[in-house]
């Protein structure tokens, strides 16, 4: 379904959706009028060749693009039907509700415990017992607890790459977001660590709406329910993952998934 075809947004139980989203870097347009809906408690994968705009699109969903001075955003992004770019919407609140995991694991140079507690503390939580409970819960949800429960107060940077990335997921989960954005979360990890992250995504979608950027098509096929194919800033096609990979309706999509370019 291309952006020209309406309906898609209305058909699904949409947690987040974009409407005619245009994003510019200075004069250059990186995202062209994309309307895409992301279904509640499902995983939506964004695929496409490097530079196709999928990461830029992802960062528009929690207003992270605003940290780059030259970026301008037009159109709208809705969270539960409300615009996150509306004046009455606090960007702090948006980012708390829409969590993010980055391509390269980026734990703070603090202890494991403090990494997860950080989001709770900046949100005003100070009760030590509540924080400790929430930290444990988040680490369990990120399937990391059993591996590190005996060294909560050691530096997070001593963990392996895969563990660091799961810690970053735990850190994002701690503030209880509604949506989780993942920007190629496993691209820097070995196959075993990647598998753990993918299993985790599968578990997490029961509680969260997940949007994942990946340039690994097998990964998109394994973890997602819906896949959107981006090319040169356009949304070429979005469909149920199985259908998109077996019966793509667009020639460009077919060329990409069969490896003829990209």
């Amino acid at each position, binding site marked *: 379904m291309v952006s020209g075809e309406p309906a898609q947004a209305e058909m699904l139980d949409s947690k987040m959706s974009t409407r005619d989203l245009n994003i510019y870097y200075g004069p250059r347009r990186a995202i062209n009028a994309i309307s895409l809906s992301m279904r509640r408690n499902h995983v939506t994968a964004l695929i496409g060749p490097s530079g196709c705009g999928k990461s830029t699109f992802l960062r528009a969903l929690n207003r992270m693009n605003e940290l780059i001075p030259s970026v301008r955003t037009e159109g709208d992004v809705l969270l539960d039907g409300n615009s996150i770019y509306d004046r009455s919407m606090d960007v*702090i609140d948006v980012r708390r509700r829409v969590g993010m995991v980055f391509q390269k694991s980026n734990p703070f140079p603090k202890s494991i415990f403090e990494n997860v507690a950080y989001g709770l503390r900046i949100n005003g939580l100070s009760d030590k017992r509540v924080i400790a409970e929430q930290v444990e819960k988040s680490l369990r949800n990120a399937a990391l607890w059993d591996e590190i429960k005996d060294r909560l107060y050691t530096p997070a940077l001593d963990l392996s790459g895969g563990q660091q990335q799961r810690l*970053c997921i735990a850190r994002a989960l701690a*503030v209880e977001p509604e949506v989780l954005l993942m920007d190629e979360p496993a691209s820097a990890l070995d196959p075993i660590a990647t598998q753990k992250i993918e299993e985790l995504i599968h578990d997490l979608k029961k509680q969260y709406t997940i949007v994942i950027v990946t340039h690994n098509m097998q990964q998109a096929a394994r973890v997602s329910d819906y896949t959107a194919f981006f090319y040169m800033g356009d949304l070429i096609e979005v469909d149920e993952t199985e259908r998109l990979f077996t019966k793509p309706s667009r020639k460009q999509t077919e060329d990409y998934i069969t490896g003829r370019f990209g």
Partner: protein
Amino acid sequence: MTHAATLAAGMLILLFLVLIASQLLRLSLPALRTFGGRFFVSSVWDPVGEQYGILPFLYGTIVSSVIALLIAIPFGVGTAIFLTEVAPRRIRGPIAFMVDMLAAIPSVVYGLWGIFVLAPLVSQHAAPWLEKYLGFLPLFRGPSYGVSMLTASLILSVMIVPYITAISREILLTVPDDIKAASFALGATHWETIWKIVLPYTRAGIGAGIVLALGRALGETMAVTMLIGNQPQINVSVLQPGYSMAAVIANEFTEATTPVYLSAIVAVGLALFAVTLLVNLAARLLLWRMRVRPIR
């Protein structure tokens, strides 16, 4: 060849340090022998009566430097944060350049400005105000003649701000963007990110800049000599004059006509050398502990 040349350069520096220390020690021995421990704990500095005690100078040097540091740290670190995190990009360079220029002003010029601008400001405005509202503290008892411990500390603080700012700025630029992004993505404000991520990440480096600035303040001579008042007394009030080790050396070495007097002056130099060395060592130890302490 290069290897040998650089080694020689390095050894020469070391040799110089040893030479300075040993000559200072040799020349101060007469005074140290004559007065013993009294030299360091007595506050009587009376060349006419041939009594030499350097406590007022020790006190003046350390107190003026510490006050200067207390004033300069918030300004210096604050400016560095402004220049790296807050200021619009196009004004960052020019402002950083101007702050660097502060370090290029000769200290005698600072001294002159201090005498003609800062000292009158202190005696006519700052001191009366401090006395009126904080006079219940022994720290702020007048009267003030303009030249005082406070005036010297203020000028010192202006002189060391560029050191703190320049080093802090370099260090702040090393904070990876991705951990700042992680903080923002969790719903942190810019302010929270600075206080809880950026500053903890850079505290060791900023600490190093502060140590360098302290070393500069301890040894600063000209501006302090012109503004501290040059009275060999220990006054609790910072509105009163004091004296520093560097200032007494600069003021009196030409008058030191007797061997003991000359030796006493050199011994002040030795003490200044020792204080600077100790402060630097202590600060380095502190920084080192800060770095190795397990983070929680």
